[in-house]
Every structure is written in structure tokens, then in C-alpha cells.
């Protein structure tokens, strides 16, 4: 491995949270962004191809070394770590709507889900999966919500556009009159 890849590996190992590309580049003032990108690819390839128990993944929050999925059960059995609580259906629905329609106010989320969403929005906000991005114009100037990097991290994706596009979903929004 190149010296830069080793430096990045050490930094990623030392941190339990994802490290942003900027922070990784700041480890060595002499390297360019391209060199950092190259070294990250080198490190990831190293993990993937020479058989490591960990993998390097990129999420919205940055880069992170994680254990591979096949060892989850053994690690949990040994009580070395345990999976965080699973998100409820209500939480996932609310997150799905916000991810696709952000910025979106509470009333619109409730209109789509057909239920009151005050408590679930509060809980998602406390868990930093959504944030207030501003206030809408108009009556009452309602709070508008958007997803956070922690949301991307929760899914281990880099960008929202890694989610299926609305028109790729099986059910297209077509007017009933065309039937």
C-alpha cells in the first residue's frame, strides 16, 4: 500500500465516526484531492480483494471502516457490539416522504401518510435523522423538514440519488381518468 493509503487507514481506524473527504485531505497538506481519492480506492480495493474482515464504505457523512455483514452474528453473540434499534414502519414512512419531497412541512407529510405525525417527527428530529431546513411562506409559516447526513449514514449511502427515482418505482402516479 502507498504511504498515503496507510495514513488514511490509520486515521479511519482511530475514528469511530465517518471522516469527511476534507478532513482526510487535511491529514497531509502536500496531497491533492485526487491523490486522496486514489488512496481511498486503493484502501477499499485492498480490503475487498485480499480478504479482510472489515470494509471501507462511503456514506453521506464521509468514509468509515465497518465490520463485514457476515460477522455480525458472531460479534453480537460474543456481546462485543449490538445492533441499534430497528426503525419502525412509521419512522421509515416519514423518512421516505421527507427524503423524496424535502423541504416538506408536517401537514403535507400527514396528508400523504394519513395519520398525525407530530410525535414521529419529533423523535426523528431528536435522533438527528431530519432537520429543520427553514420555514415555508404562507399561513403560519410552518417548519420545513429535510434529511441529514446521519440519515444517509443510517442507510450507508452517499447521496439521496442512490435511492430509486420516483419514476422507477413500480407504481406510477397516473391519473385514474386514463383507465
Amino acid at each position, binding site marked *: 500500500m502507498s504511504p498515503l493509503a496507510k495514513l488514511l487507514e490509520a486515521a479511519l*481506524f482511530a*475514528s*469511530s*465516526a465517518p471522516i469527511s473527504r476534507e478532513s482526510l485531505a487535511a491529514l497531509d497538506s502536500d496531497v491533492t484531492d485526487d491523490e486522496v481519492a486514489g488512496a481511498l480506492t486503493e484502501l477499499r480495493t485492498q480490503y475487498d480483494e485480499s480478504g479482510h474482515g472489515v*470494509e471501507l*464504505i462511503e456514506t453521506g457523512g464521509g468514509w*468509515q*471502516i*465497518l*465490520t*463485514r*455483514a457476515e460477522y*455480525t452474528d458472531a*460479534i453480537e453473540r460474543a456481546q462485543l*457490539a*449490538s*445492533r*441499534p*434499534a*430497528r*426503525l*419502525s*414502519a*412509521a419512522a*421509515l*414512512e416519514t*423518512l*421516505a*416522504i421527507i*427524503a*423524496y419531497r424535502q423541504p416538506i412541512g408536517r401537514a403535507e407529510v400527514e396528508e*400523504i*401518510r*394519513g*395519520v*398525525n405525525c407530530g410525535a414521529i417527527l419529533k423523535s426523528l428530529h*431528536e*435522533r438527528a435523522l431530519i432537520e429543520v431546513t427553514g420555514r415555508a411562506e404562507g399561513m403560519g409559516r410552518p417548519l420545513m423538514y429535510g434529511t441529514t447526513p446521519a440519515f444517509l*449514514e*443510517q*442507510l*450507508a*449511502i452517499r447521496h439521496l440519488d442512490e*435511492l*430509486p427515482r*420516483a419514476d422507477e*418505482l*413500480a*407504481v406510477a*402516479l*397516473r*391519473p*385514474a*381518468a386514463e*383507465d
Partner: protein
Amino acid sequence: MDRLGESAFLVQVGEFSGPLDLLLTLIRDEQIDIYDIPVARIAEQFLIRIKTLGLDDAADYLEMAARLIRIKAQMLLPRREGEEGWDDPRAELVRRLLEYQQVREVVDVLDRLSEDRRGKFARGYMPQQFTSPAPAAAPLALSLPELFAAVDRVLRLARKPTIHDVVPRALDVEGAIAIVRDILALRQSCRWRDLVSSGSQPWEILSVLLALLEMAKSGEVKLRQDRAFTEVEINGEPASEAA
């Protein structure tokens, strides 16, 4: 009133995440074309289900029930043959159901992604805490020579340890009492030095001391010492001698 409180909880933990979820499930179970919903039948089913699920107090479900009944009524209104521009009263409901169905599809994607992520641990993984924990103290930085120096300082300060030999049941107070009685039977009084010699073992000395204290307590002997550190004089009590 109790029932109201219970069912309010059921809404939170029920198997359906809302009235649209329940409605979609009914449509799927009955294998109904979503674009041609038999509203009368679905409305009836919906009311039965929310009653059995104890959801008939929940505002969200009641609102949907009312909506279905309204659509059912609108469907019953007579319309002229071949009338143009008839608005299907179900159109809005169908739009919402399709929209919600799309949300459910995204939920499946999110669920799969978050399940995958949940099964991977970062180094030093800690269960997610929503209250901010107190900042941890920085790890102690200490070199080996520093550690040795510290140990050395502590050892210098410490006194030389006193090591005790613990001998079980070493004292023989009974025996010592017998000896004191024997001596006092021969002489009216005796001295400490008559009872212990310089060659006596510590356990012998202690046994004699305890024997004397015991006998003095019971009134068998009288102990006298003129001044501190002078010889102790032991006098047999005439009363006990008589006994």
C-alpha cells in the same frame, strides 16, 4: 373511558401504520383493482376491521371511514347516460392510495438499506445515545519509566511492612490459670517475674497476662502495681482460698 385510553395506545403499536395502510391491505387481500374500487364493500370491510382492531376511536381511522362513506354516497347519486365530465368521486382516494403505495415501496428500500447498515459495526461501537453523555476524561498518557518512578516514590513512603505469624490457638489461658493457682497455693503472693521468665515465649507471656486479668476479674487474685512500669504484685484472695 378505559377503552378509549387502551385503543389510543393500540394506534401506536398496531400492525398498521395508518388508515391508508389498512385500506391498501384490504384492497390487496380482496384482490381488488385499485382503479375500480367497490367502495360500498371496502367501506364495510374497513369499518369491521377497525372495530375488531379497536381502532374505531382513533381520529385518523374514523376520518378515513367517514371519507369512504361519503364516496359511497356520491357513487349512488344518479347520473345521466353518457354524461361527459363526470368526476369519479373515488379519484382523490385512488391518487392518495397510489401515492401511499409508492411511499411503501420506498420504505422497503430504506428498510433493506438500514438493515444492511445495522449489521455492520464501526470500531468502538457504542449503542446510540440520545442524551449527550458527559465528556470522557482524556486517556492517561504515561511512559514506563514514569510509572516505575511513581512506584518507587510510593514504596519509599511506605513503612517496612510488619509481617505477623498467625499461630492458631497458641494461647493457653487455662493452663496459665492453673500455674498461677499452683504458685499462689505455695505462697501468699508472687510477682510478675515469678510467673514469666526472660526466656518465655510471647504466647506464654500473653497467656499469663490474660490468666491474671481473668482471675482478677473473678476476684480470685488482687493485682497491685505501685507505679507505672514497676513490678506487678499478685496476691491471692483469702476468700477464694477458703473456697
